């Protein structure tokens, strides 16, 4: 790991890395959404870009829920040819108790059926990321796979390139874009950011189930390219942890998973047992019944919000995407892909302008954090920063008491017996007020969570 040869040798046979020193304006570390968006943006601005990916192909190391949000991707590429699975025609938010109760709100605005479908599509990252990186290559980006960046190169305090695990694998360029994802080893090794606390990182485990297309259409009430995004909360989704479960329909597969704080897993609630319980909940099991498991995957998700964001710009380097902690989880909004692309896009624009001016120091690159700060990305993170703290302190009420109380109230309210509707209403109200701590408690909680929908 401590190769200290200062310069690259000229390549003399195929196993050696060719000499790329100063052949490129920028090196991008990681061909995920943020890295490829940055590379593509820079290439479109006329820069020579080297995109490095540690996996055998882009997407081979990438996992998400997931829904891809495409407003900015659509500015960069023609997504008509993209390997999209289904557009999101229905969103469902569902509360599950550990006793098997479900209370859900589902929405299918007809506007979502119209092109471009609210820029929300399920995708599988292996296919999509590979396609996206191909668009970057067609725009002139040089993609090199199976190459792991192990550290940055410095000249004094300035970052001047990267060290890779290839023989003589040091590569120099004026700017390095760190788009290495949630496990940002290079940024941490280089001292650009601290390892996030385990309270601020979620573990997600996911399985992809193979079902035939008609079965998915029938089970989820879908036609054509329409798809469903179901989000689950409560003890029936993730046990005693803070987090949630999800079910997303792809064309011929269904993605099922859970995501919750690593802190909760460390306290003993293991990811697999949590996934087992979610998949066997009576509200979820019938959706994937008979499906063949075709892939199990896991990933970390940075969920520290605006407070946990590292500095985004250094002399000769910027940090984008998950490495910069750009993931939003407000309970209702679960976003990351759009923020990754947006950060790559702004970083790419800022780098192109800086290189045009012949400077790549921190001040010259400062347009990136400034533009990101002014964009929806940081604005949304700040707006919902309160959410994680609040949800953790109210976990028992939200995840255990409320799902049960709602189910009990529903049972009372719609009861078929020989008592009056008024008696049923009274009983239902009592169940709810028991859980909320009376009218005062209900009002306090409503006040505390008012910003969830604002």
């Amino acid at each position, binding site marked *: *790991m401590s190769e200290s040869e200062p310069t690259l040798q000229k390549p003399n046979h195929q196993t050696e890395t060719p000499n790329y020193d100063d052949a490129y304006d920028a090196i991008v570390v990681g061909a995920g959404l943020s890295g490829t968006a940055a590379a593509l943006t820079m290439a479109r601005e006329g820069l020579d870009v080297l995109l490095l990916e*540690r*996996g*055998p192909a882009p*997407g*081979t*190391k*990438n*996992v*998400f829920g997931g829904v891809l949000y495409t407003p900015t991707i659509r500015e960069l590429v023609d997504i008509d040819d993209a390997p999209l699975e289904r557009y999101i025609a229905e969103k469902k938010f569902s509360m599950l108790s*550990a*006793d*098997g109760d479900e209370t859900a709100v589902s929405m299918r605005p007809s506007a979502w059926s119209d092109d471009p479908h609210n820029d929300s599509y399920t995708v*599988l*990252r*292996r296919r999509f*990321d590979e396609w996206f990186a191909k668009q970057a290559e067609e725009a002139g980006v040089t993609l090199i796979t*199976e*190459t*792991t960046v192990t550290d940055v190169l410095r000249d004094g305090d300035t970052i001047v390139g990267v060290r890779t*695990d*290839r023989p003589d694998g040091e590569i120099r360029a004026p700017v390095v874009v760190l788009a290495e994802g*949630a*496990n940002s*080893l290079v940024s941490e090794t280089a001292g650009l950011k601290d*390892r*996030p*606390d*385990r309270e601020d990182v979620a*573990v997600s*485990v996911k399985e*992809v189930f193979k079902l035939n297309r008609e079965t998915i259409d029938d089970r989820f009430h879908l036609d054509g390219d329409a798809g469903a995004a179901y989000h689950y909360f409560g003890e*029936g989704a993730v046990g005693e942890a803070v987090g949630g479960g999800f079910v997303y329909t792809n064309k011929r*597969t269904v*993605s099922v998973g859970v995501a919750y704080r*690593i802190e909760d*897993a*460390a*306290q*003993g609630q*293991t*990811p*697999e047992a949590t*996934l087992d*319980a979610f*998949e*066997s*909940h*009576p509200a979820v*099991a*019938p959706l994937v*019944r008979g499906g063949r*498991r*075709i*892939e*199990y*995957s*896991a*990933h*970390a998700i940075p969920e520290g919000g605006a407070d946990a964001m590292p500095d985004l710009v250094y002399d000769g380097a910027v940090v984008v995407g998950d490495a910069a902690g750009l993931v939003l989880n407000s309970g209702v909004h679960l976003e990351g892909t759009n923020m990754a692309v947006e950060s790559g896009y702004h970083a790419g624009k800022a780098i192109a302008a800086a290189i045009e001016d012949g400077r790549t120091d921190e001040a010259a690159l400062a347009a990136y954090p400034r533009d990101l700060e002014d964009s929806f990305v940081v604005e949304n993170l700040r707006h919902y920063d309160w959410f994680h703290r609040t949800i953790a302190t109210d976990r028992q009420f939200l995840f255990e008491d409320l799902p049960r109380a709602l189910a009990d109230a529903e049972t009372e309210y719609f009861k078929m017996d020989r008592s009056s509707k008024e008696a049923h209403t009274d009983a239902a109200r009592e169940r709810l007020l028991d859980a909320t701590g009376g009218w005062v408690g209900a009002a306090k909680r409503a006040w505390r969570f008012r910003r969830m929908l604002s």
Partner: protein
Amino acid sequence: MSTAHPHVPDVSTEDRLYTVKYRDSGESHLGIENADICTECTTNECTSVCPAAVWTVDDDSDGVPSIAYENCLECGSCRFGCPYDNVEWTYPKTGSGVVFKQG
């Protein structure tokens, strides 16, 4: 009393990992910084946060986990989960490790 969880999934960790494609590098990208810390540790967070049974502590191992690195899904949970920052975590070399086909 409760009718919850009638469809307990009949699936083991091995079944799940069998669906995952890997390229074995032949050497572990995971390690332990200081085994003495593991001997002192009684909580073994590494074993409970890992979704792929990479970390196991046997009775006769003095509390030091064994590492089945070839199961690793590269999620990084152990790196965050260890309260002593005692997990040595590197990316697998030159394209090896997990190769997701779906993601």
